[in-house]
């Protein structure tokens, strides 16, 4: 522990120095540096070989290349064009426009976008474990440097590739396409953009930095869900009304005939068809009812990995029911009751997604939350709940909702080796295997 505490600031410095040093060399520059080092070692004994002559040539080339970097600095300005949203784990591309402000054509430039580097703190370092860390050797595990690098990348939140800038003609501009992969949900902050220009041999790069602060919202990772969560016997297919809607109930638009379902009004039965088929058949009209569903997201717990999966499952469900013509209330089980309603003139699903993107783990549940739910239960058609476990608090919540006669669907994200037995109608999803679990629904 003491060693890690001492080593921590060094690692941060080390990675900063390394980042600055490596971006200033091209691949062939690095190759030449390595070759110089080898030639220096092999050619040490000038009686033994002529390799020292090659060494001299390489050293002089490297020094000259470094000296000539400043010969032609570019005269350009840059402008970043980020998309509104990105999704964690899904690569995307964005543009950086390079504008030629000088009186020469700018060729052979490279562009490097710099996100704000966020090193982990010691507490996070001790708490979190790199995926697959157990496969690393004992020394690496003890040192923890790989974990540090992984956490720093994760906190920074985005992985960016260098981009080549097309030739920028006079009085013109060019667009560089940057490939990016968000590594986590939440906000990603960009600090600056660097334009790299090579020396005449293409061994080193000179860097011109532009202050270019911006942020990007990364939405949670989402999984495809093959089925829709529609609840039989709810308000759906029944006349009803809420003042905030323009049209309620069923229209006169006949759609089809279908089998009778429990809850269908008897006046809708098509007697002729029922007689023919010897079972009740109802006429189905264009459904203009809407449902008001609730999605409750569990933010309690101490397992960040499971929490991320809870968020992903919630986001996937949100996207799944997005097209339903109804209202969706998103409840966060946290220290302060939070509800975001989307649909029909309220907020949009994207705002709910943004809220999910920035959701944090909490350690206790607000005492008002159950009361609030019990008040709101009367207007819910159905309720989806995503829990990261099923303890007393979750049980109380479920009971409150079910006692009001609201249809529920409970999703539980469990640890990798969770042996607990849950109620049969719960959807149990194993962390790390969520995608397959959701597909099997």
């Amino acid at each position, binding site marked *: 522990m003491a060693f890690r505490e001492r080593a921590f600031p060094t690692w941060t410095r080390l990675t900063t120095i390394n980042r600055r040093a490596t971006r200033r060399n091209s691949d062939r520059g690095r190759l030449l540096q390595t070759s110089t080092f080898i030639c220096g070692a092999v050619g040490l004994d000038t009686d033994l*070989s*002529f390799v020292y002559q*090659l060494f001299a040539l390489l*050293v002089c080339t490297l*020094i000259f290349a470094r000296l000539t970097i400043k010969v032609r600095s570019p005269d350009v300005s840059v402008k970043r064009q980020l998309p509104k949203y990105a999704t964690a784990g899904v690569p995307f591309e964005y543009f950086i426009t390079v504008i030629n402000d000088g009186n020469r054509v700018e*060729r*052979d430039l490279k562009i490097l976008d710099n996100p704000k580097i966020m090193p982990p703190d010691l507490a996070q370092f001790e708490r979190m474990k790199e995926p697959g860390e157990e496969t690393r050797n004992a020394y690496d595990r003890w040192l923890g440097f790989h974990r540090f690098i992984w956490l720093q990348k994760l906190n920074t939140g985005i992985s960016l590739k260098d981009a080549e800038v097309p030739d920028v003609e006079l009085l013109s501009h060019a667009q560089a396409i940057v490939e990016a992969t968000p590594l986590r949900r939440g906000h990603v902050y960009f600090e600056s953009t660097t334009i790299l*220009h090579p020396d*005449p041999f293409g061994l080193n790069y000179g860097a011109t930095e532009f202050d270019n602060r911006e942020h990007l919202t990364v939405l949670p990772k989402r999984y495809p869900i093959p089925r829709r969560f529609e609840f039989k016997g709810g308000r759906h297919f029944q006349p009803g009304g809420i003042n905030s809607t323009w049209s309620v109930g069923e229209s006169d638009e006949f759609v089809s005939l279908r089998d009778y379902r429990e809850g269908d009004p008897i006046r809708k039965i098509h007697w002729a068809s029922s007689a023919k088929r010897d079972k009740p058949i109802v006429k189905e009209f264009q459904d203009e009812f809407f449902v008001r569903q609730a999605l409750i997201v569990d933010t309690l717990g101490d397992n960040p990995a499971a929490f991320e999966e809870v968020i992903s499952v919630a986001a996937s469900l949100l996207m799944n029911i997005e097209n339903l013509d109804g209202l969706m209330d998103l409840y966060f089980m946290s220290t302060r009751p939070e509800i975001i309603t989307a649909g029909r003139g309220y907020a949009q699903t994207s705002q709910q997604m943004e809220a999910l993107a920035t959701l944090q783990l909490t350690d206790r549940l607000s005492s008002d939350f159950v009361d609030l739910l019990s008040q709101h239960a009367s207007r819910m058609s159905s309720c989806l709940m995503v829990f990261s476990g099923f303890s007393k608090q979750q049980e109380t919540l479920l009971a409150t909702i079910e006692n009001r006669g609201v249809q529920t669907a409970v999703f539980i994200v469990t640890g990798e080796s969770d042996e607990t037995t849950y109620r049969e109608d719960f959807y149990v999803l194993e962390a790390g295997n969520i995608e397959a679990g959701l597909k099997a629904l």
Partner: protein
Amino acid sequence: MSRSNPIKPRYLGGLSALFWGWQCELIWFALPIAIVLEARYYLNRRWALTKTDFYRVADLTAIGLVAMVFFLFLNRQEYHFITTLLAWIPILLFPLVTVLAYSTTPRMSLDVLFYSLRRQREPVQQSWDMDYVYLGTCLLAAGLNKESIYYFPVVVIIFACSLYQLRSPRFTKKTFVICLCAILLAATAFHHGIRNTHLSIKKQTELWIANWISQRTDPLKTRTALGKVGQLKLSDSIAFRIKPSSGKPDFPSLLIEAVYNTSSGTEWEVFDPRFNTVKHKDDFTWGFSDTVSYPHPESKIYLEFDRDRSLIPVPSQLVELNELPATDVSMSTYGALQGIGLIPAPHYRVRYDNEPHLGDEPSPMDLLVPEEHRVALHQVTDGQIPAAQAIPFIQNFFSDFRYTLFQENIEITDDPLGHFLQTSKAGHCEYFASATTLLLRQLGIPSRYVVGYAITEWNDDMKMYIVRKRHAHAWASAYINGRWVPIDTTPQEWLTMEEDQSSVLQPLWDFLGNNQFLFELWFNDQKLEEYENELYGIGFILALILIWRIATSEQVIIEREHTTDSSTWILPGGDSPFFRIEEQLSILGFRRGKGELMAEWLLRIERPELLPMLTSHNRWRFDPQGISIEEKKNLADHVKHWLDSEPIQKT
């Protein structure tokens, strides 16, 4: 310049391989390598190889490297390890480079080369352009010779051409050439500087070393550890082995390495430093006696000569020296043998009889007792002892002496020998040998100080004597009845004491060392010709497998870049002179963007004065009615006028 379309060192790869072959005298390897490397530019077939294929070839290269290291280790007397290994590296890397060159993969991912990266979860991003790595390796390997004057010029040419291919388009050719010339001048001065600095450092260091250190056995002078305080300990490692042909432990117990006859302080020197060449009996055979009958069979001494060793350890009863890898053998007046032009070889043979032969007649110097030791020696002999009783007297005198490797007291600088004889009565073999030699002289018997090895450790499994570095020994040699007879007064327990102090891991090192020695013995006995048929068979089968694999692998035909033949497609209105204006503006750095309309372009580059000409041009190109000859002429005139007035300056 982009990764998708990397620049390849066409011609330069093959050229550097040929240069390497020429410099390292491996041209018959280099020639096919160069042909294979360059042939890919004329072959439009590539093989779609997977990561696993590359892993296999890399593993094969690794096995080749291990085999090469092993081979060089076994033949370390013949080859300089590092330089030879590096000089052969292009042969080792060749399969990997070839596979990459003929595959659809442009660069070598680092996990192919580094086994540790293969276990990494995330895909490895870094990759190398192996063509340039190979080019660099060839240039480096070519430098591993000591004589060529062409090295620097050829390296400069290949290096400059590579840099030219890879130069940045930001700079003009002129800038590039100026920078390159500056580099070449600086590099020439720098490498001369390196060489001269090395030479002067070397000279200075040699001077220091000559002044302070002398670790080799000098045939003319030896410095003893008489009077030194502390533990005197020599290594347990095996110096050499002796195999008597009889298979029995019947070899003489002492091997002479050097003989000295003049004592001064704690040093022994030779009075007559001359070495006389011994006459050859045959190639690699030298005789030392006229004896024609050999009572003992020939024995083999497995001693590896290196650059630091020129003295040949032999028994004093030596009659004939065989298979010694030297051009000449010379012998000192006192019987030490030195090899001239020794080359590394695993062993030599000796024949011996029962009488000592080495060393010529004694001189007055062999009776000289230095002034500083006279008092101490006189106290021991205490009057006249007949020469006939001298040997028993001396042996009796040393009978109550102890052997020790540890000198407890403070350092004796004054008269360490006197202290040994009268006070401590304990010491190591140098004390006993020095004291015995001087006592013999005091009693009127010519004697000399001899250093060499005690042959005592018999390994019954190998039927060989093992001689360790700690078996190095010193004794006296007395001239009795016309022969130089060894007189060893060191108490016999010295060997046991030395053995007791050996490392606990010694059996393990011995086991490893003996097995390595036996393997080398077996390996050196093998003759490649005996396995000729088997090798051809294996080679044939491997070639068949290779052909089969190449033929059945997935192949891709690469498209050659086609140059567009403009004559086949005529642009409507393509003869409009306005295109010359566009061309001129492009040269000036105002290139029209892809799909950008000409009018938009002219406005962007702030040339609205060209718009009227553009109107005529557009009509020339697109008006179904066409434009009149007069209008065409007008446009041409305007264009010409504009071109004449616009200064041509290329950016």
